[in-house]
């Protein structure tokens, strides 16, 4: 039975402590949550992502106040009501659109930082897996959100992506109709994707973000050299006042102060895009209202899905679907495919270094090809890049098993 001081003033420090353990919470969550000192600005991407998610959430709330999930009204509620009637409606919409695009850029930077520094193994597997789960959830969130303006791209993306679930030669048309709630994307489809976008998926995202933070606690954050050291000892050193030689810093305020500076720079770029360069995040084709009797000349996903779309495209239906499923799943297996015990930056890992840059460049090539019309030379380049992607992942266990222990 806990002890409660009857004389403590309500809401006084002592009173709160006895009920909520505020001092302990503060210590555990911030002032004595130890982060390695040997890090660079890429370690701030997590907080940048959290901030971007916050910005998406807030702008989304205000869009939700005027958006109409109805196939007859959705397009005009977005393009007319929100853009010209609602006070600052245009700001929320542009922030939301730019945020949705930029959040994927930061996710990719965050992911490739993890791959480069080997932050997914030796106790950090769950960090990677929960992070990949977040990637999948963000993809679902982005796709469902893309349906909502009910323009030509919304409709035809909805058509094409749900058709993937027919499983090629399996002809699972019943499943496709079940997902849509109709023979084609229609009212039922728009309503359920609206629900997914504003409720179920964000809820799951928030849950997995908490899990993601949790998985970080015991293995600790990695550092620039992949160095393993005694956190407790370093923490004692820090607390004793030897901040110069200690290898750790507290999350708050020391680590946070750097995060916030990085966020400042990030938001300069972010809002530059919002005010002066938002078109990249809002495809022109989606400013034509949905028309189920007319496919746009060129259809392509948003840039962050292009690389996996391109892995689907050059093959015949069945092989393409298998390759696509491979591309979607393979990143989950990274901690188990990398057989080397080394946790170190890629540049010190021999062949793995080559593998890292080859993967990055291959994915950029795939991204380029995914948007270009699948004709002539572009088809060939896309096909080779898709094979390269698969080949690289097959090679990974082989080159890492031979890697010398550092």
């Amino acid at each position, binding site marked *: 039975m806990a002890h409660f001081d009857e004389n403590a003033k309500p809401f006084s420090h002592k009173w709160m402590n006895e009920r909520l353990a505020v001092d302990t919470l503060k210590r555990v969550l911030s002032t004595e949550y130890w982060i390695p000192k040997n890090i660079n600005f890429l370690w701030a991407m997590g907080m940048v992502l959290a901030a971007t998610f916050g910005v998406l959430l807030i702008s989304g709330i205000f869009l939700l106040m005027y958006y109409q999930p109805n196939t007859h009204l959705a397009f005009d509620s977005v393009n007319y009501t929100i853009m010209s009637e609602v006070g600052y409606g245009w700001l929320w919409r542009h922030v939301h659109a730019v945020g949705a695009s930029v959040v994927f850029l930061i996710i990719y930077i965050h992911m490739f930082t993890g791959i480069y520094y080997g932050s997914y193994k030796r106790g950090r597997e769950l960090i990677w897996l929960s992070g990949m789960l977040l990637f999948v959830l963000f993809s679902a969130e982005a796709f469902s959100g893309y349906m909502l303006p009910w323009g030509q791209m919304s409709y035809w993306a909805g058509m094409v992506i749900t058709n993937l679930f027919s499983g090629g030669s399996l002809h699972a048309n019943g499943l496709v109709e079940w997902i849509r709630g109709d023979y084609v994307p229609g009212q039922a489809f728009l309503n359920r994707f609206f629900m997914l976008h504003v409720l179920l998926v964000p809820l799951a995202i928030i849950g997995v973000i908490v899990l993601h933070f949790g998985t970080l606690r015991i293995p600790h954050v990695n550092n620039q050299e992949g160095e393993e050291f005694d956190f407790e000892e370093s923490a004692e050193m820090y607390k004793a006042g030897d901040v110069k030689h200690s290898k750790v810093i507290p999350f708050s305020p020391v680590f946070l102060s750097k995060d916030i500076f990085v966020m400042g720079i990030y938001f300069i770029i972010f809002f530059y895009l919002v005010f*002066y360069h938002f078109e990249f995040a809002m495809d022109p084709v989606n400013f034509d209202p949905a028309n189920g009797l007319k496919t746009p000349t060129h259809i392509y996903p948003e840039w962050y899905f292009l690389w996996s779309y391109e892995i689907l495209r050059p093959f015949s239906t069945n092989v393409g679907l298998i390759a696509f499923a491979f591309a979607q799943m393979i990143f989950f297996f990274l901690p188990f495919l990398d057989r080397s015990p080394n946790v170190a930056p890629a540049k010190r890992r021999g062949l793995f270094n080559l593998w890292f840059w080859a993967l990055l460049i291959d994915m950029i090539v795939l991204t380029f090809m995914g*948007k270009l019309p699948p004709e002539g030379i572009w088809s060939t380049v896309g096909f080779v890049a898709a094979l390269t992607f698969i080949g690289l992942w097959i090679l990974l266990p082989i080159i890492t098993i031979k890697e010398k222990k550092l």
Partner: protein
Amino acid sequence: MKELKIFGIVAVFTLILYWGVEPFAHSQMHKHVEGHGLVYDGKADIKEASKDRKEIEKKFWNDVAQISKLKGDPVAGEATFAMCAGCHMKGAANMGGVTPPSLDHAGAIYDKNFLIALIKDPALATNVAHKYPVGGTIAHPMGPVMTMVTAPQDIANVVAYLKAKKAGEVTPKEAYIEACSRCHANRYGHLTQLGEIPKTKSNIKTGQDIGALKYKEKVAEEQASLAEYLGTLPPDLSIMIRARNEHFMHVFVENPQSELPGTAMPRTGLDKEGMEKVMAYLEKTGDPSKPKREAVGPWVLLFFFIFSILAYLWKKSMWKGHH
């Protein structure tokens, strides 16, 4: 400095990625078409024309150039224009698919050469001759003008009259209504093919707005006759400025065939002023937040600029003694 190097690498890869999926991809998807600078001399038409039509086009535009050199007499032109006014008047009825424009601002927004060409041969002038094959069943609704105003001097006079009397100050909206809105609705601008949507009132007892329903019926009939004549209902232009880029719009309005070969849309023949006004109106309905964006943007950026400086100073004080 190591951090700056890392930042440089991230920035370079990001920019390459951007270049590939935006400017490069779009340049590959849409071939760039040059406009002809709002000069209506038929050069583009002659180039596009099939072999057997080349001579017809050449002769036609050559005649237009000859008439253009004549000095038109506005007073005589007014008398000749009386023949036109039978169809071109306020509240005109649909004729063969479209409603003739009132021409109240024609002189201010249309090019002189284009107007000459239009009176001489409407189908050739608007570059839609492919819709009216010789011996075909449909004729250009404005076709009769070719038998009414034929003499070069008469044509020059009518155009001189339009340029002198049917001009004056035009608002973007008026220019848009004159040039586009008979075929293209603009629902964000509250315009249908029949013009401004009238204010109506619901019956308080039934909750039904009979006036609005009747108006909707009239619009639907007008749209049906347009769709019948053009093969498709011309799209609503409310946010066309965002669905197509501005360059595309310019070139397309100048000569629709150059961007969409075979389209039923006639060339509108706008001159520089007319084009600017129409584009201004399209921007107003399609991108109404532009002025607000431009007003708020610098302040938000300034805020985050100062924020970053303060955050940097705070970071520096926090990390003091850590290295």
